[in-house]
């Protein structure tokens, strides 16, 4: 995601430049590859740590004795959290480029649909579904966002904090997009009340497992557990059901070319989250000293959160059954479970051949 900068020409040869050209980079960390990437240079070591260059211990501590950052903020241990890298190398500039592009695409899709009369081609059943239900996933996203935001402060390296914050920003935008889309739809298909959607999310029995799931996520102290429960267990199952199975797949079958623009962007972002989460799990379970212990802890978390996510997924599946022209829910569930299991495959202990 982080593109190399093009070469630039100077008006003169920079004759005052002194020093060894090899010193013209950030040399205080070990790059993952032979040369430091732009992402690494802009991210690594922006969070000083006693495990890095800060000597003499933490200069400020909490009233309960925790240091500025505490290894005890998570049950997972690794040699050095600062060695972790987001495989896509996402930092602020490409993030804004991609997120702003998604915002523009959605505005453009709505504008074209309006000018070309595409909303009138939506099936009546789909219109009714959108009026009642298009905003419901936004409450799920909001709950997820809330829990993830709090996980970014205790995270034990700058690269991990970056990934969590950017994920939270994407989820927040996705939640807001659904509400904004509902507002855009109102002149075309009739009232899409946020208040009514909220009432359903808070009161309807079918949505309570989803609500309980994201509320539970915010009731966890361990930042790694929050992140991995969200990205390893909840999002692959519940998030993908809500986005892909409830909104993306049935949209085209219902004559809707607009909703897929929004959900397509959200799924692209989920793929980024999925990839860095897989890398975080790999990083933890392959740690030379603590890998096996980490594998056990994450597997324990996965067992607990998979069970809760399954309950929520079953409830969402029942909602999806009511969506016109969707595929069989058993098929959808089987698909998301397979993807989740694949994502969690790193937790299986590898059999070593004798």
């Amino acid at each position, binding site marked *: 995601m982080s593109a190399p900068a093009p070469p*630039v020409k100077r*008006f*003169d040869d920079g004759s005052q*430049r002194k*020093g060894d050209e090899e*010193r*013209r*980079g*950030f*040399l*205080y960390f070990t790059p993952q590859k032979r040369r430091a990437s732009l992402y690494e*240079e*802009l991210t690594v070591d*922006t969070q000083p740590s006693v495990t890095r*260059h*800060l*000597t003499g*211990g933490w*200069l400020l*501590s909490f*009233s*309960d*004795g925790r*240091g500025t950052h*505490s*290894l*005890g903020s998570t*049950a997972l*241990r690794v040699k050095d959290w600062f060695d972790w890298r987001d495989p896509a190398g996402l930092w*602020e*500039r490409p993030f*804004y480029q991609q997120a*702003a592009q*998604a*915002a523009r695409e959605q*505005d453009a899709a*709505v*504008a074209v649909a*309006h000018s070309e009369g595409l909303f009138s081609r939506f099936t009546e059943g789909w219109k009714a579904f959108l009026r009642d239900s298009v905003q419901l996933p936004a409450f799920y996203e*909001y709950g997820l966002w809330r829990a993830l935001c*709090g996980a970014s402060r205790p995270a034990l390296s700058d690269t991990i904090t970056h990934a969590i*914050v950017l994920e*939270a*920003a994407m989820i927040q*935008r996705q939640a807001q*997009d659904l*509400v*904004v889309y509902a507002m855009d739809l109102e002149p075309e298909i009739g009232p899409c009340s*946020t208040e009514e959607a*909220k009432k359903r*999310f808070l009161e309807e029995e079918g949505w309570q497992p989803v*609500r*309980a799931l994201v509320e*539970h996520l*915010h*009731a*966890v*102290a361990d930042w790694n557990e929050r992140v991995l429960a969200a990205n390893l267990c909840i999002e692959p199952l519940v998030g993908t059901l809500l986005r892909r199975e409830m909104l993306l797949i049935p949209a085209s079958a219902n004559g809707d070319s607009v909703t897929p623009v929004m959900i397509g962007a959200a799924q692209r972002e989920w793929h980024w989250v999925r990839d860095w989460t897989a890398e975080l799990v790999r990083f933890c379970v392959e740690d030379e000293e603590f890998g096996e*212990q980490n594998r056990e*802890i994450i597997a324990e978390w996965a067992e607990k959160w998979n069970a809760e996510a399954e309950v929520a997924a079953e409830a969402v599946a029942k909602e999806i059954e009511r969506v016109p022209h969707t595929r069989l829910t058993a098929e959808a569930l089987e698909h998301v479970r397979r993807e989740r299991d694949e994502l969690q495959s790193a937790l299986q202990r590898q059999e070593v051949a004798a």
Partner: protein
Amino acid sequence: MSTARRRSVTKTHERIGQLGWEPTHHQPVTNYPTRYKFPAKAKDPMKQIMREYLPMQLEKDERMYGGFDAAVRANMADKTERRWLEVLKPFVHTTTYIEGCAGRVMSMLMDTVPNHELLNGYHVQFLDELRHIGMQQSLARWYTKNAPEPEGWAMGAKYYTGSPLTKAGYNMGTNTIVGDPVHAGLTMMGVLETAFTNIAFVALPDVAVRNGDFTLPTTYSSAQSDEARHISNGYATLMTLLQEDSNIPLIQQDLAAGWWSTHAFIDPFAGVLMEYFSKNRSDTESYLDKWNRWVNDDYYRSYIEQLGKLGLEMDPAVFLDARERIENGLIHQTAIFAFAIWPLAYWRFDGLNEEDFEWFEARYPGWYDEYGPLWEAFNALKDPEEQTLLLSGFLENAPPMCWSCMMNCLGDEGPLHRVLDGRTRFYCSDQCMKNDVNYPGRYTGDRIFFDKYHGWNLADVIRDIGFIHPDGKTLVGQPHIDDDNRLWTIDDIEACGLEIISPNVRAAEEMGLPNGNWHDPEAPDGAVVTTEMSYVHTSIGGDGLETGPGVIAAGANGNGRRNVAEVIR
């Protein structure tokens, strides 16, 4: 072309505002408990919607990064005053760290504050801060690649917390991410951003432009355009808190503490940068003039004093004392100390000349009589052939370092002090002593730079902090910027034979007080263990494990985490 219809920001915001709800299945858990009470109603000050926010930020990014490319083509680094370029190393590192703190404290608040109306603004701020980290790291990278001298930049993150001059800045910033999240948040939003970003991101870039530097103003002006939002977040937080009477004494205590911990570093740091590292002397304003405008008028009188109408009675003394300290020479005294300890810095210093003397004398009558001889001495000793350092004899008379803010205890009345566990802590001011006493166990670690090195040879200190070029000899810090003159090496320092005397150890002895040394060479992190409960409980454990409240057990054995000290390299 089909164009998107305009949406009402208010209506959209009102709809988005309905997304939050009060949890009933599970109650949220926070890692950052607060003493404050939050009323049911709060207000989102910014009405920020991601759909509008993201393209706006992208546009600002594109302009800024485009400016970087243009500045390379125009070879702007060579057209910028060298004296100024050198001091940007500690400046950019300090602000980048503070940006990270500003983001992280938003996360603390989001985990603790129950009012959904405030959360959206906090979240947008965290994203802004990530943007500022990227921008300012990019600026550091730009200077690394284009400025005449890459040393100092190349090892910047390592050097930043190694120099006593910048470690105090790290300490100041950390005040905004440790402790009660509301205290931390008020310090960041209600002090650092509201009072001081105008100094650091507006007044200072003006000095940069005068010195031919266009990349720094391009970067910080773009950051400052986000600060209005962050200031509004702070104001909305205050307005929400003020609805509960029990919060008022807490705000009064925490805001005063945050004000002072910020002032104690930012004012001498920014003041020295602007006044002592500007080659261009076209600026008619002194730092005090700028402070009067940006801090006294725009913050203290327009913001803090007005809070009185809402029931918050801030003691004016803490604000007036800050101004008085600047008036009485805080910046000038800090400047000469900073220049005297140049071997412990990772940038180069350019001694003052006649034009500089005239500028200071015109703004601070009597300045030359008081400080001129020291500056003449600095210039006379910049050649390593002299084999003498201004620092020789300096530490014998230097005031002790303050336990809380880690800056010099300046002023005529002698340093304040207190004795804890048979050792003496010194304080630069009454408020710095309060900042330690009122928050026991907050200030920890091996804090006083010279305590560790008491009795060491200066050359060994430099080797220990590693401020040496890859050739193994040349120092990174230098007392001149002239590449045609010989640079100081570690051998030159060795030849000076300077033994470090900790001003704190010396001052305690002179005053007949108990031991002033807080360094313990046997401790894993080098810090004396105190009876301040919090620190003992988790930061130092003889078994190498971090245990105590707030610590999550690891694995089946139920042991706590490794102690932070165990992994110090």
